[in-house]
């Protein structure tokens, strides 16, 4: 019946480059995807603008705050130059959380994920390469934002002795920790996005955990919540953005609950990510796309 078609597959006449699927190629693909949508430019733009302007404005407010003699806070609690960074980051991180979640959920909401999984049928490498591209890009953006902020702060307020002390190892660790924390928060939002596969759900969950949960946990006078408070992802992760002296002060003022060190806190945030990503990857592997 089909003798005429039994001819073996000959090499196609069109001479096209024969490609091969590999992880470096996949990183390149995800890099193109990441930078070719407007949401990346918007969220990173907002993040840069918010961080830099907030650091400068809050520094201005701190410099002009009344001294102890004028009825201001006691000198021991007066903010150092790192103070404005902590406040700015708490707000600016939200833009990065949105970016992290959208990096994966936008593929689900548009159906792009099926094209991605067709090109990479083993599936999981898509998740890893996206995570790497996101982490690297956000880390770079965070370093730029913090560096520009620190330079501007020094430019405007160095005369008032309110600028980053680059010779202090603790300050540098806190600042480096801030950049790392920001990239890690983006990764946490990404992990939640991969698990929930829905933009609104992922953004709402990550904002709830970062913003609402700490307020609720500290406002409700119920002991288990007080004990759990230090282990919230945002609370634990932000330990690494502070100097050991600041952490010791904070530990002294909270009578109950665990006092996590900088890297213990960061480890707790990483644990949140590992658990979320593990669940997401199991589901990605098992579910129909």
């Amino acid at each position, binding site marked *: 019946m089909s003798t005429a078609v039994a001819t073996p597959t000959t090499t196609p006449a069109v001479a096209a480059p024969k490609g091969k699927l590999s992880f470096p190629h996949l990183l390149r693909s995800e890099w193109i995807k990441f930078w070719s949508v407007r949401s990346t430019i918007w969220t990173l733009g907002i993040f840069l603008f918010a961080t830099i302007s907030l650091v400068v404005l809050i520094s201005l407010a701190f410099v002009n705050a009344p001294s102890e003699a004028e009825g201001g806070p006691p000198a021991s609690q007066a903010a150092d130059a790192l103070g404005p960074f902590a406040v700015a980051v708490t707000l600016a991180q939200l833009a990065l959380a949105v970016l992290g979640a959208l990096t994966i959920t936008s593929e689900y909401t548009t159906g792009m994920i099926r094209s991605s*999984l067709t090109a990479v049928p*083993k599936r999981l490498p898509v998740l890893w390469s996206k995570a790497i591209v996101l982490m690297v890009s956000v880390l770079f953006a965070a370093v730029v934002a913090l560096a520009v902020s620190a330079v501007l702060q020094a430019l405007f307020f160095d005369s008032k002795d309110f600028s980053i002390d680059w010779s202090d190892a603790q300050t540098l660790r806190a600042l480096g920790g801030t950049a790392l924390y920001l990239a890690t928060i983006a990764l946490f939002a990404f992990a939640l996005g991969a698990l929930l596969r829905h933009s609104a759900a992922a953004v709402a969950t990550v904002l709830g955990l970062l913003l609402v949960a700490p307020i609720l946990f500290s406002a409700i006078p119920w002991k288990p919540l007080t004990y759990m408070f230090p282990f919230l992802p945002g609370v634990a992760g932000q330990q690494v953005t502070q100097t050991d002296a600041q952490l010791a002060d904070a530990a002294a003022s909270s009578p109950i609950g665990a006092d996590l060190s900088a890297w213990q806190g960061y480890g707790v945030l990483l644990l949140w990510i590992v658990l979320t990503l593990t669940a997401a990857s199991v589901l990605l592997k098992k579910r129909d796309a």
Partner: protein
Amino acid sequence: MIEAQGLTKRYGPKTAVDGITFTVQPGRVTGFLGPNGAGKSTTMRMIMGLDRPSGGSVVVNGKPYAQHHSPLTEVGALLEAKAVHTGRSARNHLRAIAATHGIGDKRVNEVIEMTGLDAVAKRRVGGFSLGMGQRLGIAAALVGDPRTLILDEPVNGLDPEGVLWVRNLVRYLASEGRTVFLSSHLMSEMAVTADHLLVIGRGKIIADGPTATVIAQATEETVRVVSPQATDLAALLQGPGVSVTSDEPGVLVVSGATSIQVGELAASNRVVLHELTPVSGSLEEAYMSLTQDSVEYHSSEVPAELTQEGSR
């Protein structure tokens, strides 16, 4: 070459694909024909590893799709035109897909030109018409220059010029020795595009053979006879394997006998004939008769001429 063996997909209690076995050969266009909900898309998604089979297996070029080292150069697929990020330009979409296999911009530009997307390549996909989206999907399927091509309803939303373009393209690709597997719910389109037909209904393969054969088997040849002695002739024609119906006085529709047989019978019995016409059934009728027992979503009213001929 695509080989499916007992391929099954169940969603809860509902069986979408029911243990189908088939082979799609290289070097020809194989049409996958069936009504909506028959299991065409599910089957194609299982071939591409997007849906996991509940039972059975399917291999492409000898291996499950996911086990190929270079999937996009083995198989190119258009499963749904809108599997695209709406905020990205067509060109960047193709660049991102090509990049996974280290395929450069040269090939991307080639497929953009080949699919006639030059003018809109830099525009964001969100504003594309169904037809342009379909062309972008075909471009994405071709970017790896694959040995096997799987297209789900590729002419959906295309204008006549686009339909003709797809037809010529798939025939050309098959002539190069590639495997081409495309689905449609339009019999007329399949009849002019496909060399081989695989008809599916309710998750089961109903017919598998060369297009002409499948159509011939499904199409009933009838003979229209007009005679003043219609009643006498009808009585003479009645016999095993022959059925005669009459919609209006003096007009007979004979099935199971050729016009030659009817004419000779009339002559030997001195019956006057005013008209003797062989009538071959339409493609639509053939399709309906093939799939009428397996249509998932019936219209509430079924035209009369389709219900009375149950024999096959």
